[in-house]
């Protein structure tokens, strides 16, 4: 009833977890059955180990939060040697979010992940707002976005998802550019660039001054962008941004997303993904929908 497809991947249901909000999945094993998920997008992984930005890295804002973690991760070599072996036997789609500061770094990481049998896809992160070089820079210009995707396409042979930033004038132009360069799917939205100031201390809450806004506050922006992109490209769209309930997930599906990712809501309720899957089943039963694909893109 809930099965859906993203390029060559079959998802048990459309509910995946968003990169950077779910660790490597292991952190949530006490709370949920990870094998029930449609997929897990593990933490942004770079060519070398990264320490990320200095503390403080987060601030709560109305119906959302700002973060400036800055891609802290163990690096692709440690991922392949250690982390991969801990998670490779999970019965779900394990997708690695690949981040970087240069085309060479993206290609190195993608090529190493390509060799891992149980990783059927990568999500190319050309949209992180929290790194000084690269990151969002690639994702804000259609030519640069196309260039990094076509170079990665040469070394990566499985399903290539490209994660898009909302911090652009026309997300549709970027989506079309990466589709033309060989992307198999796009996921959107990454966080919205934001800022918050502690007026008592008269300084920004984040060490980096600006950071990425996530949570329910961004959801209407995300639904709008998913709807625009889904009408403009023929590759499958994965929707994310502020999903915290089955109804939220359904908005993205109806707007044209073939699957969704749950992010910040994992911090508030570590079992939220199971409730969303149950809620989608319940919705289909109530509306006599035998196949979730029947409602995808109905708007």
């Amino acid at each position, binding site marked *: 009833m809930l099965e859906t497809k993203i390029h060559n991947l079959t998802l048990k249901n459309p509910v995946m977890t968003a990169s*950077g*909000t*779910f*660790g490597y999945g292991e*952190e*949530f094993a*006490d*709370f949920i059955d990870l094998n029930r998920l449609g997929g897990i997008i593990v933490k942004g992984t770079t060519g070398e180990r990264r*320490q*990320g930005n*200095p*503390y*403080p*890295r*987060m*601030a*709560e804002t*109305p*119906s*959302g*939060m700002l*973060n400036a*973690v800055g891609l*802290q991760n163990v690096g692709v070599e440690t991922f392949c040697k250690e982390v991969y072996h801990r998670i490779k036997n999970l019965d779900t789609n394990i997708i690695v979010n690949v981040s970087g500061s240069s085309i060479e770094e993206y290609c190195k990481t993608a090529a190493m992940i390509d060799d891992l049998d149980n990783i059927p896809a990568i999500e190319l992160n050309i949209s992180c707002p929290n790194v000084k070089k690269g990151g969002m820079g690639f994702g804000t210009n259609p030519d640069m976005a196309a260039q990094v995707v076509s170079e990665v396409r040469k070394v990566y042979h499985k399903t290539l998802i490209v994660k898009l930033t909302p911090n652009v004038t026309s997300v549709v132009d970027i989506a079309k550019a990466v589709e033309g360069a060989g992307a198999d799917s796009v996921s959107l939205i990454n966080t919205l660039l934001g800022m918050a100031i502690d007026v008592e201390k008269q300084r920004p809450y984040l060490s980096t001054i600006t950071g990425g806004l996530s*949570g*329910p506050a961004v959801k209407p922006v995300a639904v709008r962008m998913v709807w625009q992109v889904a009408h403009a490209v023929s590759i499958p769209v994965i929707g994310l941004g502020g999903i915290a309930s089955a109804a939220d997930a359904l908005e993205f599906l109806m707007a044209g997303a073939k699957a969704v990712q749950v992010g*910040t809501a*994992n*911090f*508030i*309720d*570590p*079992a939220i993904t199971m409730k969303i899957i149950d809620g989608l089943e319940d919705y289909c039963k109530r509306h006599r929908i035998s196949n979730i694909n029947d409602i995808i893109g109905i708007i």
Partner: protein
Amino acid sequence: MKKYITNFKIVGKRVFNETYFSLTLQHPEKLPEIAAGQFVEVEVPGNKQVMLRRPISIHDVDTDSNTLTLLVQVVGKGTRTLSEMSIGETLNLVYPLGHGFSIEGKKVLLVGGGAGIAPLLHLSKCFSAKGIKPVILLGGRSASLIPVQKEFEPYGTVAFATEDGSLGEKGLVTQHSLFPADYDHIYTCGPTPMMKAVARHALSNGIECEVSLENMMACGIGACLCCVVDSDEGHKCVCKEGPVFNAKRLTNWINK
């Protein structure tokens, strides 16, 4: 140690002053083992301004009544909303989280300041259960800002340091006459400058020292990487690798 997400009922509430209150929470079933220094992530109900859970250290555990007590300082919207809750209401917790204190040493000093005295009650009881009576040194600007005092008495030698001299010796905990004695382990929780001063003293005198940090958190389980401390091995999540760290791992932080 397995973590849970579950509802508790508020069965006790004490308001110490405008700043401090405690909530005693009961679970219908047997509590898991909870190490001193571990914390809970509390969902704050009924305030749309508060989205994220709030990390609060576990002050006391009673395995007979399946209750745990949170000693809370009102610092913002989340803790203010919690302070307005009543007996009979329900709170949802993710717990027990983080890495607690080791219970080691024979001549032991516990140093707490402000809200940092919270985890030291459970810690004192853990030492007491092992037959060790620590020296428990509690500090604050004045007597009213050390909300819990006599509760510690059965478990060790309790002493106080207040900046205005309203309780115990006048001055900082690090100036107290019991502070420089010949301890083999020091455990501390409280304001950052206090913990750094305590840790520097311990490190320079070859005393084992554990500090409990209190960074801003989102997830509480090591997923979001927001609460990091600059440890000697790079950024480490306070929620998962801490909140209790051996001071030897934090020399960068201590000397900054």
